[in-house]
């Protein structure tokens, strides 16, 4: 009996130790490690996708559709809905080029326009086409842990690194503890004002990674307006020819 009690005690201690070790491992993940895991999950070498943007303001709603190719630094998007059909955007690092299909003109867009809403949506050109890793742009720290819609999350705060050009000075991100995907993000100006909030509606596991396929961007400075971004089809790491992200390919 004494022997059984001894085994039980050892078992209990082992379990406590093991659980403690698990907790310590989880707690001890640094903000950078969490963001890196998220980056590794959400960012890719190349991707090809079809998507739709549903722009809602009050009771009015319009839908724009597009196809896009992207790599680590560059993006090429072409709108396919009837009103904007053939309009293309090429982002090469910090430069944005636009192709106007009627006159078949290629115009370099001024840098300040990267912060404007893309085709009237709440997503700016920068939001949609930004391809840099977040850890290259922000210093992150864990500010709390909490549940969001039943999912345990790390809540991280990122402050823009000095000398780095970013659209939002501060961002607060809710990152799923198990799947390492952002479920919600608040984007702030340097003044502390909340500018935008992005919330994920639907996540799917595609090609072994968790992908947000339906998210909503709300411009917090405006009333009754949001844009839903739905990825209808996505392929990771397709082979993209070198000349894809070029002016010659916009024509």
């Amino acid at each position, binding site marked *: 009996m004494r022997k059984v009690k001894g085994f039980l005690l050892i078992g209990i201690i082992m379990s406590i130790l093991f659980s403690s070790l698990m907790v310590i491992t989880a707690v001890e993940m640094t903000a950078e490690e969490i963001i890196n895991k998220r980056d590794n999950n959400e960012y890719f070498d190349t991707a090809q996708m079809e998507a739709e943007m549903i722009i809602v303001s009050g009771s009015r709603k319009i839908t724009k559709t597009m196809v896009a190719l992207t790599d680590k630094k560059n993006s090429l998007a072409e709108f396919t809905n009837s009103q904007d059909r053939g309009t293309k955007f090429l982002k090469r690092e910090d430069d944005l080029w636009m192709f106007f299909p009627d006159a*078949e003109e290629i*115009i*370099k*867009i001024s840098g*300040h326009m990267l*912060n404007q809403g893309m085709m009237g949506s709440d997503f700016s050109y920068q939001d949609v086409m930004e391809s840099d890793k977040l850890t290259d742009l922000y210093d992150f720290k864990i500010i709390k842990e909490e549940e969001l819609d039943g999912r345990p999350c790390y809540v991280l705060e990122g402050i823009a690194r000095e000398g780095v050009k970013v659209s939002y000075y501060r961002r607060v991100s809710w990152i799923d503890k198990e799947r390492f995907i952002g479920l919600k993000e608040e984007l702030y100006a340097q003044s502390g004002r909340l500018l935008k909030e992005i919330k994920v509606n639907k996540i799917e596991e595609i090609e072994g990674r968790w992908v947000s396929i339906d998210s909503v961007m709300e411009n917090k*400075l405006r009333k009754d307006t949001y844009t839903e971004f739905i990825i209808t089809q996505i392929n990771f790491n397709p082979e993209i020819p070198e000349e894809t*992200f070029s002016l*010659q390919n916009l024509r």
Partner: protein
Amino acid sequence: MKKYFSILILTMMFILLFATTTIFSKVEIGGELNMNLSGVLFRESEALVYPQGSLDLELYIPPFDNNLIKSAVYLYNNPTTGQFDFMFKKLYFKHKFDKLQLTVGRQPISWSFGSMLNPVDFTLGSVVMDEETGSKYQNAIEAYFPINWNSSITAIAAFPNGFENVKWGLRGRTMLEGYDLTLNYVREPEENSAETMIPVSQRIGISAKGDLGPFGIYGALGYYFEDNDDGDLAYLIGGDYSYFFEAGNNIYFQLEYLSIKKDNLSSILGPFFAGNVTNNLNENIGLILGMANYEIDEFSQINLMAISSLNDGSIIVIPGYRNQLSNNLSFNLSTAIYFGKEDTLFGPNVSEGTQKRPKGMISIGLTYSF
């Protein structure tokens, strides 16, 4: 000759189209239908109101084996004849070779670089004043040689009046220190216009566009060769800026200044202003053009444009409003109000026996995309 050229292009297109039946099955038709009610005010008691309609129709043919066929036609009711008319905007075949893209047929040739007026375009003519003059659509052969992702050389042979008079163009484009740079050359053929012989003319030009801090800046310099003197110089400088309000809306500003000899002005502004630029052709004209575009919400915006001659103080003010009513339907309102004395560049002219220019114009309409 022009007719034969179109027939040749049309035949080529149809052969290609029907030879590729699998592609043909994927062809889509799209376009835009515009219905407007326009009004022109000459005097308090003299006004003209008329409906206007136009249809842009385009065939979307999927590319095949590095080939691309484009066909777009513009149908409109001609306000001068009262009849329906049409114009092919695009009817071309493009093949992408390894180091060359060759485009043959009716095609848009535009050397815009982001300005509202462009003194160094392939076809001079204001984009702002009249988008549908058709002057940028040419029967032409274009050879485009890409050098790297942002650099290229384009050679163009256009046939504005048939094969006998060729208009030549050459354009180099590159990027340097974040600036989009172009170098252009155009040789216009001799032209017989209304019993007037317009001699061969040549021009070269450069343009640049980039960022300077929070501002977008651009400029162009053109040199128009003359047979009997040193030629004329034209230059344009401009910039743009976005201001974001606390409420999330933004206002976009664009401002530019053009200096050009009066003789060359009509080709920049279009035929509408030709009657005003006959006196003292050697005089240099300074034009200032400004635009502000305010986004009211996701679906609607107002804009205000103004163009003024600094020489005589005349001005056109062009306010506009656009509202996207649904996925395919938008409402447009545009007006133009002319200020200035009768003999000024933009001033209204209602005297008998001269070309009439109105005091104001208004156009209200709907655009349906499909």
